[in-house]
């Protein structure tokens, strides 16, 4: 299980920003470029380098008015997936 006390942050050289031309959020990385899906976008918007994974889950549960235990696992999995892609550091 992933510990919710980890603090996800963008990996060195990775940038997450809104692109007005495409009307979409984009992830820019060394010689790579990702168009994150809407769920990843909501998670990434909360990654500020200081918030723990637990705080991210709390925030998302509040924003989407969803039971915490229902989304906790999905969020943790997405964060791990982004870390595997080299986008996030945990």
């Amino acid at each position, binding site marked *: 299980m992933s510990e919710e006390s980890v603090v996800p942050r963008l990996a*060195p050289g990775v940038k997450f920003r809104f692109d007005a031309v495409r009307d979409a959020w984009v992830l820019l990385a*060394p010689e790579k470029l990702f168009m994150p899906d809407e769920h990843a976008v909501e998670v990434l918007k909360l990654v500020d380098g200081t918030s723990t994974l637990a705080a991210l889950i709390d925030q998302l549960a509040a924003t989407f008015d969803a039971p915490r235990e229902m989304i906790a696992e999905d969020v943790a999995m997405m964060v791990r997936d982004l870390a595997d892609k080299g986008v996030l550091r945990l």
Partner: protein
Amino acid sequence: MSAPHPAPPMALLAELTHRCPLKCFYCSNPLELVRASGELRTEDWLRVLDEAAAIGILQVHFSGGEPMARKDLVTLVRHAAKLQLYSNLITSGVLLTDEAMAELLEAGIDHIQLSFQDSEQQGAEFIGGYKGAQAKKMDAARRIKNAGLPLTTNFVIHRHNADRVGAMIELGAELGSSRIEIAHTQYYGWGLLNRDGLLPSREQLDRTSEVVEEARARLKGVLTIDYVIPDYYAARPKACMGGWGNRFMNISPTGKALPCHAAETIPDLALPSVRDHSIGDIWAHSEAFQKFRGTEWMPEPCQSCDRREIDWGGCRCQALALTGRADVADPVCEKSADHALLAGFIEQADINAPLKARG
């Protein structure tokens, strides 16, 4: 007939200059190198960057030649950063002094790809023709790391150094790379001219692939290795530039907008200049960018192939270089009627073949 408005390009390859302190035999620059006096001016590049951001380009790769040979590189990087363009510098590193690194960092450079010619000095100097380059590159790698930037090290592989791929990966790892590119030579420009002396043997290629696989498993979680095999041994062509006029725009030192970096070799292809047109206009409306865009232009076996939107027919410039025609399937594809040509080129390769250093 006019094509539907294309999606915006993702990245701009800004070939700032053909000037380079190195003379690598495998250089993919054209045989006719542009002199400094023919290069775009700073204000032209600044305008190009403005236009790039406006049409939705997200990343700019500053390359060359040696982009650090341009005195205005820092100005261009700073402008790219201001426009929120992700900037990548592709450099040999021999000009990356402490001062240059500090300036680039302050200007907002996002990533640097540092090229190496070999794991060892002798081999590196044989290929690059620059005495002392290896030590300068090692210093450059340390400066990039100390600046807190992610480091990609790039090693170009050929017949003369393929046996040292293991040592190259070790070097890349020691230097703290987060990404290593083990890229077999692409046979364009000077590389094509020197193909007989550069193309590795099948045994060398297989051994290289094994070494890369072993290293990938061992270094998982530490760094990633991007591995590019030589086209000539492939069964499927590379999706050159992610498809013609699909994702990338390349701009030559003189300001020609190229759908592929070797597009100047294609006869009768009128290449628009950024001196005369905006890049948005070139991307959407120029004949050059529409010529091989999408799938309509494709002959068989591409037209009915289920990989037509994966491979995009391979590389037009390679098709031209190997068959004399730019509008046929890339012979790298095993379905191409010309695929057998490749075995002949492999047969011809010889470690003792003469190599001509780029001008």
